[in-house]
C-alpha cells in the first residue's frame, strides 16, 4: 500500500500538481509529521503504523492550515484517512483552507483500526489505493446511555474530575481553529484551577463540537487522564444529525447548520 502511495505522490510532484506533500515519516525510530519537498525524501515515508495499525496518527489537516497561511500561493498534497478527509471538507467550508490548493492522497484504514475507532466511514473518497472498508456502528454511546440518568451523571462527573486542563483535546483537534477560545475565557470558566470547573469546561467544548466534530478520536487519544471524549462527541454528532440532518465532513456542498447566517434580525 505504501509503495503505491509513494508512486502516486511522485507523480504529483512530476506533473507539477503540488510543490510539497504533507505526510508522515519515520526517522530515528520515531514517526512524525513531515513536509516532503523533494520526492527523494519519500524513502522514509510512513503510514503511521508503529506497534499497531494507526497508532501514530497526527492532525495533518491542522498542520496544513499553518502551512497554507505561510505559503498561500503553494499547492500541497496531503496524506488522508477517512477522518482526515472529513476534517479537510469542513475546513474548506469554514474557509480555513483553499480546496484548489489541496490534493488529497487517500488510503483506507485496516478493519482492526475501524473497529477500535467504531468509525462509520473508515476510508476517504479520495482513495488512491486499497478497498473501501466496512463502517462500524458505535456501541460505546449505547453502553453509556444504558447506565441511566444517575449512572451517567456519576460516570461523567468522575471522568471530568480527572481533567488537568492540558488543552490536549483542543490542541490536537483538526477542526479547532478559533482565534479566541471560549475555554480560555475567564468569565465563562475561571482560570487557575484543576480540575477546571465541571461540567462547564467539557460541556462548552462538547457544544462547540456540534456540527464540527468529524470523529477522528485524536482528542481521546491525546487525553492523559482517559476521558472518553470521542464517545461524548459521537453522541453530540447523533443529536445534530437527528435535529438538522447534518453529519460533519460527509458532504462537500452542504454547509454546517452552524455555519449559516440567517436573516439579519430587524433593529
Amino acid at each position, binding site marked *: 500500500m505504501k509503495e503505491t502511495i509513494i508512486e502516486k505522490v511522485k507523480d504529483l510532484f512530476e506533473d507539477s500538481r503540488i510543490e510539497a506533500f504533507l505526510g508522515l515519516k519515520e526517522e*530515528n*525510530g*520515531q514517526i512524525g509529521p513531515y513536509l516532503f519537498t523533494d520526492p527523494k525524501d519519500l524513502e522514509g515515508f510512513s503510514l503511521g503504523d508503529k506497534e499497531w495499525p494507526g497508532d501514530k496518527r497526527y492532525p495533518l489537516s491542522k498542520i496544513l492550515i499553518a502551512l497554507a497561511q505561510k505559503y498561500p500561493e503553494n499547492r500541497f498534497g496531503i496524506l488522508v484517512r477517512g477522518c482526515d478527509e472529513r476534517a479537510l471538507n469542513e475546513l474548506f467550508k469554514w474557509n480555513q483552507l483553499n480546496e484548489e490548493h489541496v490534493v488529497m492522497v487517500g488510503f483506507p484504514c485496516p478493519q482492526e483500526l475501524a473497529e477500535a475507532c467504531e468509525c462509520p466511514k473508515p476510508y476517504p473518497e479520495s482513495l488512491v489505493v486499497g478497498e473501501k472498508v466496512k463502517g462500524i456502528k458505535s456501541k460505546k454511546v449505547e453502553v453509556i446511555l444504558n447506565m441511566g440518568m444517575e449512572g451517567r451523571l456519576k460516570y461523567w462527573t*468522575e471522568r471530568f*474530575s*480527572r481533567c*488537568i*486542563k*492540558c488543552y490536549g483535546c483542543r490542541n490536537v483537534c483538526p477542526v479547532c481553529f478559533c482565534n479566541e477560545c471560549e475555554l*480560555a475565557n475567564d468569565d465563562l470558566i475561571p*482560570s*487557575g484551577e*484543576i*480540575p477546571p470547573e465541571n461540567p462547564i469546561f467539557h460541556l462548552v467544548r462538547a457544544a462547540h463540537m456540534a456540527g464540527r466534530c468529524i470523529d477522528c478520536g485524536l482528542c481521546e487519544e491525546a487525553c*492523559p*487522564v*482517559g476521558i472518553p471524549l470521542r464517545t461524548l462527541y459521537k453522541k453530540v454528532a447523533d443529536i445534530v444529525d437527528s435535529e438538522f440532518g447534518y453529519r460533519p465532513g460527509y458532504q462537500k456542498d452542504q454547509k454546517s447548520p452552524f455555519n449559516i447566517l440567517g436573516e439579519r434580525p430587524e433593529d
Partner: protein
Amino acid sequence: MTNSIDEIKYADCIFVIGSNTTLAHPLVATRIFQARDNGARLIVADPRKIQLASFADLYVRQRLGTDVALINGMMHVILKNGWHDEAFIGERTENFEELKKVVEKYTPEKSSEVTGISPEDITRMAEYYAKAPRSTILYAMGITQHTTGVDNVKSLANLSMLTGNVGKESTGVNPLRGQNNVQGACDMGGLPNVYPGYQAVNAVDIRTKFEKAWKVRLSDKPGLTLTDLFPAILEGKVKALVVMGENPLVSDPDSHHVEKALRALEFLAVIDIFMTPTAEIAHVVLPAASFAEKDGTFTNTERRVQRIRKAIDPPGEARQDWVIIQEISNRVGYQMNYSSPEEIQNEIASLTPSYGGITYDRLGGEGLCWPCPDKEHPGTKFLHKDRFARGRGLFHGIEYIPPAESPDDDYPFWLTTGRVFVHYHTGTMTRNSPSLDQEMREGYLEVNPADASAIGLKDGDKAKIASRRGEIISRIFITERVDKGTVFMSFHFLEARANVLTNPALDPIAKIPEYKVCAVRVEKWE
C-alpha cells in the same frame, strides 16, 4: 525510580505520599488512572486534599512533617498482623531486629497522636498496602523537602522491604523527579560528592581512573552542597560562582539571605535561556540554548536515557551548554576539545559503568534505561531484582523527629509550599508563556475557610504573611484543600516570594532544606 513508569498500571495497590501527581507528573498520573480502572487500590497521603485524593480508596491527611510516624505506624500494624514477607526479609535483608524494636513503639494510637490520622485509617493503609500482591510507592518532594527527608525515604524503603515490594515488577520505591533531566544531572555527577554514575570522589581507585582519563590531578574531598554554599560565600570561602539553569534568588529558602550571599560574590556568572532575577545581579550572563536548539540526551525519572535533536538554531549569541562549559574551561586553564555531544557520550560510557553500553547508535526510538553496562545489555526495567547494590537490603530503625520549626503564639500557622499546575519552579519559562501566564498571573495563599473568617479575610483579599525570616504580601484563596491551621503557597512568583518565608534548616545528610514546613503569621493587609 526503582521501577519504570509503565509498570504502575499493573500494580494492585498504589501508595502516593507527598506527590501531587496529576499536577506535577501527569503522565505518571495517567498510569494511576489506568491501574485504578483495572481495579487497583489507591492510597493517598498528603497534608493537602489534592486532585488525586478524590480518586483514592483511602485519603489521609497527615500533619506536616509526620511521615516517619505514619510509616512506622503502618509497619507496626503489618508486623502485628503477620502481613510481612518473612521469606524476603530472611533472604534479601539485614538488620530487621533493629527495625522491629523501633516500630514496636509506634502503635496506631501513638502514630495517630502525631499524624492526626485515625488509628483505623492507619490500619487500613497497612492492610491495603501489605496484602496486595503488588504494591508500589510513589513519592516526590513532599517526602524529601524536610529536615527528616532522608529518614522519610529510608522509612518508605523499610516499608517496601518489609512486605517484599521491591525488586519485582510493578512494585518499588519510586521518587518522581521534577525536571526532565534532573536524573541525568545527578547521574553525571552534578552532586558534590560523586563522579558520573555515583562513583565516590573520595575512593582512590575511582579518583585515579578519572585522573588518568582527564590527565589532571583531582581533589579527593567532596565539594559544597548548594545549601552549604551560601553561608560559605558569606564566610569568604567562595569568591566566584557560575550558576547554570538555576534561579536561586527565587528558588532557595530564606531568599534575603541568598541575595546577600550572591551580592557578596566577587564574580557571578549566570548561564540561562532567560534573564532571571539571579541573572539580573550577575556580572556576566551567558545565553544558553533551549531544548529545541541543542543535541544531546535527557535522562528521565525512570532512568531512561533519550536523545534530543536540534530542531532550530539557537538565537543570537546563545550556545549549547557543552560549548559554554568547554569555552569557560579552556579560558580558566583546562583544555577541552570535544567536537560533538556524541563524543562526550562516548566518554561517559567509557568512565561510567551504569552507562557503559549507552551510545548514540542505540538511542533511537524509546532510548535505554540504565544500568546498561555493555553494548549487548538491553537496559534495566526495574532495579534490585536479585540483589541490592550493597548486597542485602539494610533496614534502619528510625524514630520520628518533629520539624525544625513549629507554630507558636507569634507564628501560629503551618506553612507548606509547592507548585501550581500551570507554573514551573521560578516561572523562568512558564511565566514567559502567554497562555500559561494568562491562566495564572499571580500567586496566592491557600487558607482554610475557618481560618480566613477568624482573621477576617475574604476570598481574593490581600494578606501579609510573615515568618522569622521575612514577610510578603499575597492574595488569598479560600479552600478546604488545606486543613485548619495550615496554609499553602507556591514558590513561582517573585512578587510574592514564598521562599522569603521558608526555613533554611537542612536535612543533616542530604542537606535539603525544609521547604515543606515552617511557621508563619497571617494578617489582613490594606
